[in-house]
Every structure is written in structure tokens, then in C-alpha cells.
């Protein structure tokens, strides 16, 4: 199946948006303009973008504490995300969510989640609803390798297995849960094999290759839409930065980091696009510059937005 040039450039742009958005976030964080904590997704852009490119706008995703990338890839507006991070009234959650809880219902994004594995049963429920209603929608459930060791992961995959739910469980295996390497936390080498226990096919994909992720997820989404049930995909990738703020990354070597940086998913995709004569260096540069502008606009929008209103602090507890 051939991707159009337009779609590939959209994918490239989304990856660049995620990278630059996060670099801006990192900068603002260091300037103490962002409160609390945040978990950067830099290095994993190909997974979110490849996966979301295989979905329709009204398909669902659930995300994790490391959710900015999924949110952007699913189509959220960066200015409202930035406003949320700065605690503004114009943010997606009106300053009640922050980095870990951004949700954008209008693009089918049911939300980032501050609890490891928090979204897994929720995604399973969204898929159950789609199955019951026959609405043809598919849910992608993003989660980390660490989340795969929570009990709810196993309960939910079992449910998806028995009910043949239209869902793709997408494990982003970035080799660490905070400081704990997968080999110390997880009894199997490949998390994908866990699908077998629940009669769900498990597939491994190179998480730094956006086209590979796209093809793999597309196939799984197709299976789901045809009523053939869930797929567990394990995307092997790497987070470049620390787990969250102030993580000196003492648990891994700089050499290892360097090896992964050499497989920068954005550079990799750029060279694929140029090698295949889909885009010229100039075209890509233009996209980069356009994204720079968007990020600046997002920032301007956010800092100039009114702060969250203390008078309304008890709003939205109950519907």
C-alpha cells in the first residue's frame, strides 16, 4: 500500500512538531515556567506518528504519562497543549490537568494518564463500546514496557482476547521504566510474546522507523476493523532524555544513548524521503521552519492567556 506524498509530509511534520514542542517544553521547564513535572518523548516520535497515521480522526487513543507525542500525533492543537502546561484557562483541561492529563476529545484522544497502566482497561472499555455499538472505530492503547507488568494489563488483554475487541495494544518499549531496565523488570525478552497467553497476535516493530510502525499498525487496525480482534505491538525504541525532570540517567551509559541518537527517527525518515525522491532537503527545511513558527505561536498564545481561575476551583468535579 502506497502512502501519498502529502500524508508522508504530514507525518514528517508531526514528528518535527513533537520534537520541537518538547524542546520548547524542556526550555520552559528549565526556566521554571512549567510547574510540576513532565516526561519528554524525544526519540520516540516515530511510534506515535506512525501509529496515529493509521487511524481516522474519530478513532480513539489512550495515552500515558509521556503523552505529548500521542496528543500531537492524534491532531491536538499545540497552543492549547502549551496553555495547559502553563496552567492557563485556555488549556485543554483549563489548568486542572497539566502535562500528565491532557485530553482532546475532539480528536478521539481519551487522555494521558498519570497512573502507569491507568489507560489500559479504559482503552479496553472504549473498544468494548465500539464492538457493542458496531461503530467501526478502533482504539489504540499506548503504554510503556513498565506498564506491561501491571495486573490490569493482563486482565485487559484477556478480555480483549475472549471478546475479540477492536483494539491495538501498542507497547512502547524504550528499554527502561524510570531507571529499571526491561531485563530486570520483565521476565520475557520480548513483551510481544505475552499476546500468546491471551490469543492475541504479538508483533515486534522497529519503533524508530515511522514507515515500519505505520505499516504494522495499519495492518493491526485493519484486523480490528474487520472484527478479527486485538493485536499487541511492541515498538522497540528509546527515550533520549531522563525519565522526567532532574534525572541524571545514572542507570545507563552515554555510549548507549549515543548509539540510539544515531538512529534519530526524524533524520531516518528525512533520508528515506529524500532517497525515495519524495521530498527535497529544501522542502523539509521549509517544514522545519514552519514548525518553528507554530511553536512560537503556541508559546505566545499560552503566555498571553489568562491564568486558571481560582474562583472556579470547584468547577468540574461533578457533571
Amino acid at each position: 500500500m502506497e502512502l501519498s506524498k502529502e500524508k508522508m509530509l504530514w507525518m514528517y511534520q508531526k514528528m518535527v512538531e513533537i520534537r520541537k514542542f518538547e524542546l520548547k517544553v524542556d526550555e520552559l521547564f528549565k526556566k521554571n515556567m512549567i510547574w510540576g513535572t513532565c516526561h519528554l518523548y524525544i526519540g520516540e516520535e516515530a511510534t506515535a506518528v506512525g501509529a496515529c497515521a493509521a487511524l481516522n480522526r474519530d478513532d480513539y487513543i489512550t495515552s500515558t504519562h509521556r503523552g505529548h507525542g500521542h496528543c500531537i500525533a492524534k491532531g491536538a492543537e499545540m497552543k492549547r497543549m502549551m496553555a495547559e502546561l502553563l496552567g492557563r484557562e485556555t488549556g485543554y483541561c483549563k489548568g486542572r490537568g497539566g502535562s500528565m492529563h491532557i485530553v482532546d476529545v475532539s480528536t478521539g484522544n481519551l487522555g494521558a494518564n498519570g497512573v502507569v497502566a491507568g489507560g489500559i482497561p479504559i482503552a479496553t472499555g472504549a473498544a468494548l463500546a465500539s464492538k457493542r455499538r458496531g461503530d467501526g472505530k478502533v482504539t489504540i492503547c499506548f503504554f510503556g514496557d513498565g506498564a506491561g507488568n501491571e495486573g490490569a494489563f493482563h486482565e485487559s488483554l484477556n478480555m480483549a482476547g475472549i471478546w475479540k475487541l477492536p483494539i491495538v495494544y501498542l507497547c512502547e518499549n524504550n528499554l527502561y521504566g524510570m531507571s529499571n531496565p526491561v531485563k530486570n523488570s520483565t521476565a520475557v525478552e520480548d513483551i510481544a510474546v505475552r499476546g500468546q497467553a491471551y490469543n492475541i497476535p504479538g508483533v515486534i516493530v522497529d519503533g524508530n522507523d515511522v514507515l515500519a510502525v505505520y505499516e504494522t499498525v495499519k495492518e493491526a487496525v485493519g484486523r480490528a476493523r474487520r472484527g478479527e480482534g486485538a493485536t499487541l505491538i511492541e515498538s522497540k525504541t528509546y527515550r533520549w532524555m531522563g525519565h522526567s525532570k532532574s534525572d541524571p540517567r545514572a542507570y545507563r551509559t552515554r555510549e548507549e544513548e549515543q548509539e540510539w541518537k544515531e538512529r534519530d527517527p526524524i533524520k531516518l525518515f528525512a533520508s528515506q524521503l529524500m532517497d525515495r525522491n519524495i521530498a527535497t532537503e529544501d522542502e523539509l527545511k521549509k517544514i522545519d521552519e514552519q514548525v518553528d513558527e507554530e511553536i512560537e505561536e503556541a508559546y505566545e498564545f499560552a503566555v498571553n492567556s489568562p491564568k486558571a481561575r481560582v474562583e472556579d476551583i470547584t468547577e468540574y468535579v461533578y457533571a
Partner: protein
Amino acid sequence: MSEKTYIDALAEALREEFDRDENVFMMGEDIGIYGGAFGVTKGMYPKYKDKLLDTPISEASIVGAGVGCALVGMRPIVEIMFSDFMMDAMEWIVNQAAKLRYMTGGQLKVPMVIRAPMGCGTGAAAQHSQSLPALFAHIPGLKVVMPATPYDVKGMLKAAVRDDNPVIFFEHKLLYWTKGDVPEGDYTVPIGKAAVKREGKDITIIAGSIMVPRSMEAAEKLKEYGIDAEVIDIRSLVPMDVETIVESVSKTGKAIIVEDDNKNNGWGSEVVSKLIESDAFDYLDEPIKRLAGKDIPIPYAPELERAAVPQIEDIIEGVKEIFDKR
């Protein structure tokens, strides 16, 4: 209007809600052909196959999947076989269902009902017998109700299903076979409104769930001692109908609270503080008394189990003590 058991009234509410709204369905363990651990859905399966989803024994994901269904516009009713097992699902009740609306600035809502049989008196001992409404009443974002009569259980379940918030719906196991008048067809009992079950002028008994019929019987017996007790069924802990309680206590000047939960930090202490914070304080002419379960896990032996929570004679004694003091 005809006389029905609590369980039949509940089943009637379920059937009517299933028929009324295609988004309503129920999931839980053994609720299909088996008919549920307490028989609430007994006999319903042939007609409502599509509405009764048998799940694996996976409380966390049953509730979590309920949340997911609710987020995308369905109105799931989740049955937890015994309310004790809600502990397995705490994450998705407390950290997810209760908070999603707030932390997303109102973008999401969770119209879900969790039905949970609670309470002791069946000899099932500590892990199948506790009453935990107060535990959930402490969590902002949840509504917590405990209907005491067949009439209320039908009307309140309908109200809960139609509510856009997560509602924890506690059914006391000993109430299932109690009887009362239940109207045919559709009606709702608003969540957050207490009921004056018996008017009286001498003292207000504020009770919930199984303690309501016990308090009503106690009130009848108290007539023999010349005490005319008013009985209030609190019905809903969140939201709590403070107004009705304050009004009654302002009239009688005396209050006793009778609850099924254990005492320490129970909902009775919340009622007491609400009263003390209110105008009723000026009218109180005796200290408020609290009768609640002992602060112990529910024991097995029948004598111990019976002594663990207030019985009718305890309520009578408790009220009399207030008057005897004078």
C-alpha cells in the same frame, strides 16, 4: 403499586433501563445465565442476552472498562459481586472514574453505576461482609447512595443510571428479600434527597441502608416508652441532604445516628459535624449519639457477627439512654 421484594424492584429497574436506553448495559461476574451471586438478574438472560455481559474475574479491568465505555457515551452498570472486591478495583474507581471529569477541565464525564452488595448478617465473615460507603464518600467526584427500600432501590437505580457521574450504589444483602410497595413503570428517586420515613417530635433517628428498617421498628417500640421518634433515611451520602436533617433536629432537639459502617471516621461523624456547623446546634439539648458497627473486621460466629453492628434493641437502648439521662 404492588408489593415487591427489593431484589425484584432492582431487577425491574434494570429491565426498564435496558429497554429505555440502548446505551445502558450491565457487566459483571456471573450475571448472565447464572443470574448474579444474589440472583438480581435471575431469569433475565434469555430476553436480555445482549445487556448482560459476563466478565472474567478481573475487578480492576471490569471497572476500568466500564470507565472506558462511559467516556465514549455508553451508560454502563457494573456489578461487583461483593462490595469488598471493590478493593481490587480501587485504582479505576478512585484515581480514574472520580477524577477524569475534573482533571480534564470538564471534557470527559463518567456516567457509570457500580452496584455493590454490602453488609454482614450472612455468616460470610470479614472478606465478604463489610460496609464501606464512608470510604467512598470521602472521594470527590463520586456519588454514594444506599437505598433502603424496594421503592427507593428502583427509583434510585434509575436516577443513578441517568446521572452523568460515577455513582457507587450500595445494596445491603439483608435488604434483598425485604418487601415494600413499588409503583409500576417509570419513576426516579432523586440522588441527594433524604426521606422522612416517620414523623415524630421527640428525637431524630438518622439512619442509612439496613439501619432504616431497624430504626423504624425501634421507633414503633419506643412508643411504649412514651418516645415519639422521627426517622430519617439518609439515602445518599454524596450529595448529602443536610437541610432535611438540620430541619428535623432543629424540631426535635435530639439526634441519634445509626449506621452500618464501623464507627471510626464513619459517615455518622460527618453528619455530626454538619449538624454542629448548622443552625441545629442552637436547638440541640442533648449530645448527639452515634451507633455504628464496632471497629473490627466482621467476625464469623453468629453471636459475634450479630454483636458487630447495631441491632433493633441497640437502637432502642441508645435512644432510651438519651432520655434516661435527664
